[in-house]
């Protein structure tokens, strides 16, 4: 475990992508062993891909076609009507404005939360490694331990605190909560990364008279691009996918996309429109999926780094 932890920085985390094959392997391709391996892998792949297929296909059908009852069938005449409706006029139980307000709310939550939480965590990691002070390690230990406490335990007092601050039910409250609960893992990430950088750089700058912030902005930050990318991926997908904090802290008019999606599907009145539901689901999943497919290996790195706590 400690091994993987130190690798979260520059070394590839999945512990080396494939080790290069050693020498030629003059075996036939279709050995029974290979057939078993590939068929199991393909079976599992079907399990993983099936929902994506169903989601997209259903969203392109019309309701009469869906009522015909073949979840596998390709749409006879693919059309984006359901997507348009999901985006602009699907009902969430209260209003009928579709998902678009939720999308923009999610954007308004995700961007500042990501920036603030990453900045604070980077400073934390830097202070924890280069500017240790009495008790800093204890704070860090509690921070990491605290990340395992179920959110429900801290939820009510936090509602009271944000209410006292006068921000309950606003974007600021959600941003604050995301910053607080993103802190353990991000701080760990930055702490491990800064620990892997050569200390001589820091010492040299210190001898030259540079202070806390100057060293941070002019020396540490420019060297931390890889870990910033990992943190960005982690936070964008994590915050976009959040449901609990959005539903508790954002207030009705600021509900993020996940909350509105759930409302469209689970609390709408009247006959359910499965094509609109699935279009809305695809739309909500589109942002994290894009991040996932664009970032590729970096996402794996983030996941593995996120996994190795402590």
């Amino acid at each position: 475990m400690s091994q993987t932890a130190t690798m979260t920085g520059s070394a590839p985390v999945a512990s080396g992508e494939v080790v290069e094959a050693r020498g030629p392997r003059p075996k036939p391709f279709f050995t029974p062993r290979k057939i078993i391996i590939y068929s199991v892998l393909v079976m599992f792949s079907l399990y993983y891909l099936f929902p994506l297929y169903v989601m997209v296909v259903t969203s392109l059908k019309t309701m009469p076609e869906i009522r015909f009852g073949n979840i596998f069938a390709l749409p006879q005449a693919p059309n984006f009507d359901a997507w348009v409706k999901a985006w602009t006029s699907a009902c969430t139980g209260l209003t009928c404005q579709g998902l678009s307000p939720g999308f923009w709310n999610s954007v308004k939550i995700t961007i500042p939360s990501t920036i603030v939480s990453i900045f604070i965590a980077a400073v934390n990691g830097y202070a924890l490694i280069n500017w240790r002070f009495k008790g800093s390690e204890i704070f860090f230990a509690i921070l990491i331990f605290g990340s395992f406490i179920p959110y429900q335990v801290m939820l009510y007092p936090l509602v009271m605190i944000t209410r006292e601050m006068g921000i309950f039910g606003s974007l600021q409250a959600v941003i604050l909560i995301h910053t607080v609960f993103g802190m353990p893992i991000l701080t760990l990430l930055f702490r491990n990364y800064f620990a892997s950088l050569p200390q001589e750089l820091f010492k040299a700058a210190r001898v030259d008279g540079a202070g806390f912030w100057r060293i941070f902005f002019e020396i540490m930050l420019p060297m931390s691009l890889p870990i910033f990318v990992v943190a960005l991926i982690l936070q964008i997908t994590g915050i976009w996918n959040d449901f609990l904090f959005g539903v508790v802290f954002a207030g009705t008019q600021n509900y993020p996309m996940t909350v509105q999606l759930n409302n469209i599907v689970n609390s709408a009145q009247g006959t359910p429109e499965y094509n609109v539901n699935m279009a809305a689901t695809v739309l909500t999943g589109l942002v994290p999926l894009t991040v996932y497919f664009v970032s590729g290996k970096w996402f794996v790195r983030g996941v593995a780094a996120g996994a190795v706590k402590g």
Partner: protein
Amino acid sequence: MADTAVPLEAGAETAHRPGLLKRILFHNLPAKIAALPMMATVLVVFVGCTIWTVYYSFTNSKLLPTGKFVGFDQYERLFQTSRWNVSVTNLVAYGAMSLVFTLVIGFILAVLIDQKIRFESAFRTIMLYPFALSFIVTGLVWQWIMNPTLGLQGTLRNLGWSNFSFDWIANPRMVLFAMLIAGLWHGTGFCMVLMLAGLRGVDEEVWKAARVDGIPTWRTYVSIVIPMMRGVLITAIVILGSGIVRLYDLVVALTNGGPGISSEVPAKYVFNYMFSGGNIGQGLAAATMMLLTVLIIMVPWAYLEFGGKGKRT
């Protein structure tokens, strides 16, 4: 856990020795100022809010947390509420199945991926993408797939398999398995990534030695590689375990606790009592029970990991 934080505020105690106080306050001052958000988070949220919740779980708070001390009354009522007992049973049953299946499937997939196969990155991409999606999306897709009339069951019946049955989501006795299908879809890829990292951390020499000794591959995995992956396995169990205790969004999206109360979970109980049931004391008592569960998982792990030598990464 809470106790460790107390000595940190010892500044007041040493006030009569100005030299020391000055040192505690002003040594590396910019770093301390920069770390204020972290200190505030630790002291106010992780320590303060947790203590607050535990304390007020012993009061009879209803709509507002101003109640008077009532000892263990909330807990007694909690365990007399059938909805809570169902929630706990569900969590234990779902949690055990989910943990075992996630680990086993994650490990098997990692072993298969590790066989120097072609299209490795394609397979990995396919297996991990559900993990990038939210539990809400996961729950809603599977809710649609498992829809008894128009989903998988209806489709296969329409195609001629007239007694095909897959109504788990609407069947109180099977609904946990419906949750399991959706949960495994979301989480096994993640477990596979962890296990693969563990497998590739095993020295190639170990494999060579085992091959020289003529030990069959499966035996090498079971007797040598798995014991060597202890660290990764424990990490995976701790992460999966604390995720399972938190389980909330998936249930809300997939079944919303139904049919009836047959798929309720503790996190949902807490939420409902705190924010719509108007019985804060009950919600807090339930939350404290969740905390206790996590401590039962965490303390042995923390002891094993950091207890002995106080060594940290």
